[in-house]
């Protein structure tokens, strides 16, 4: 019988951008079990949210994650607006969609670049990051900041995208689309990428559902779960269907995200074409009271906020369930059977982990 070895994988690893430790139980080079160890960068933001007032919390939740800061603000604001019965102006709802899809677009570019780098595909990494830079420039031009956008607020949005700037955004998105079209075959049809990722870390539809997978991880296993179909912000007025793949392997997760990058560009275009004139926000009157659950579709999947308010300026409880948190049990299911060399690049990166989201 082969002896078993336990390897503490991480928290510092060249492929992981953030600290995550997995205790891997190995038989020779094959993983037979994995146990996560967390808590290296936990910040206690849920506790801090009880001490700030409900308007300040928008700035706080934006700092949960630097990649999808806007999504956290959006999810929080949608929840507070429901509690307070605030009707957000239509123009603000479309602007929220535009920034949300730009966030998804740059997040998926970041992930694709990291995957390319982890697979040793340096030229793809550079092409993808060059394209991402155009998106970051658009985000900076429209929100004033590259990372923490600060453009969402309770009752609407803080900034407008003027028609002239919108035209420029669409022109730059043409460039993003052009470069994306160039690199897409290099990702999806490239022999090395396919051979390296196909049939590995497979999650069946049934397993994915039972383990609570969300986002591209769920959709790559054939589960049509996309919170945008609920129609929050202005999604109900836009035409799109969730991107689905059936294979459930690492390659399928790559395909889903690459196709979603194209879809995000389309959604920004649709929103820009249909955005009406009007106010950006409405004034907030009173304090929130009651409890609700708010959900948005982050780049990594379903983001859930539970908010309980008691009619004062401070919330009684703010609970944040991020998509990476939901995708850890599926990851623990994918790891057994993998070769150790595939763990970082083919298995773990395929769920696009965001540790700052988990350790909020």
């Amino acid at each position, binding site marked *: 019988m082969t002896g078993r070895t336990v390897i503490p994988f991480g928290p510092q690893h060249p492929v992981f951008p953030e600290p995550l430790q997995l205790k891997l139980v190995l038989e020779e080079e094959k993983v037979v079990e994995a146990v996560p160890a967390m808590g290296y960068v936990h910040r206690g933001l849920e*506790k801090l949210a009880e001490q700030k007032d409900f308007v300040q919390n928008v700035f706080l939740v934006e700092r949960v994650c630097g990649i999808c800061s806007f999504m956290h603000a959006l999810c929080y604001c949608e929840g507070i607006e429901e509690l307070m019965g605030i009707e957000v102006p239509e123009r603000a709802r479309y602007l929220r969609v535009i920034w949300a899809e730009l966030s998804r677009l740059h997040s998926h570019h970041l992930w694709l670049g990291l995957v390319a780098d982890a697979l040793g595909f340096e030229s793809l990494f550079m092409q993808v990051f060059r394209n991402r830079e155009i998106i970051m420039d658009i985000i900076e031009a429209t929100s004033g900041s590259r990372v923490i956008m600060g453009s969402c607020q309770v009752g609407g949005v803080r900034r407008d995208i003027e028609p002239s700037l919108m035209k420029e955004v669409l022109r730059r998105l043409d460039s993003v689309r052009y470069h994306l079209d160039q690199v897409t075959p290099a990702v999806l049809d490239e022999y090395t990428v396919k051979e390296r990722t196909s049939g590995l870390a497979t999650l069946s539809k049934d397993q994915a559902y039972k383990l609570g997978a969300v986002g591209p991880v769920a959709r790559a296993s054939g589960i049509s779960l996309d919170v945008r179909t609920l129609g929050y912000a202005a999604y109900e007025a836009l035409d799109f269907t969730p991107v689905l793949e059936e294979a459930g392997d690492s390659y399928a997760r790559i395909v889903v995200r690459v196709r979603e990058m194209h879809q995000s560009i389309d959604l920004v275009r649709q929103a820009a074409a249909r955005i009406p004139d009007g106010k950006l926000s409405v004034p907030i009157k009173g304090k929130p009271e009651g409890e609700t659950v708010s959900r948005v579709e982050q780049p990594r999947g379903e983001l859930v906020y539970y908010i309980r308010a008691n009619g004062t300026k401070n919330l009684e409880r703010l609970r944040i369930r991020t998509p990476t948190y939901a995708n850890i*049990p599926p990851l623990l299911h994918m790891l057994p059977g993998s070769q150790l060399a595939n763990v970082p690049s083919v298995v773990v990166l395929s769920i696009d982990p965001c540790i700052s989201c988990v350790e909020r």
Partner: protein
Amino acid sequence: MLQALELAPEELIPRAHQLALKGWRFVTMTCVQVDSGFEVLYHFDRELEMEHLRIRVSKDQVLPSITPVYFGAFLAENEAQDFFGLKFENLSVDYEGRFFLTADSPVHPMTRTPTPEHGEKGEGTRDR
């Protein structure tokens, strides 16, 4: 606004089994401190519709873990053990209060009157 079905602790596992059989996905669990102890909310989803269960427990009461039914709940239950001091029976992967926290972390920091320092403070190592 959220409508939650109130259950007694002993009704939780049978209800979780029913939900699992009917295809409900476990979304997350939320622990809220109230005057009499804790409210524990379980959130489920099926085709983007949500169902919520609410269980009220006193401070020292032990809750049955739903991890035998929904394995993915082990993260949220361990988090509640760390931050609120809730105890779960039959937890599939039990970190015993050391999931996010370490030996020198504050005890149950999400409760409203946390003990400022852990009794074992000073060890300074990650004992997992």
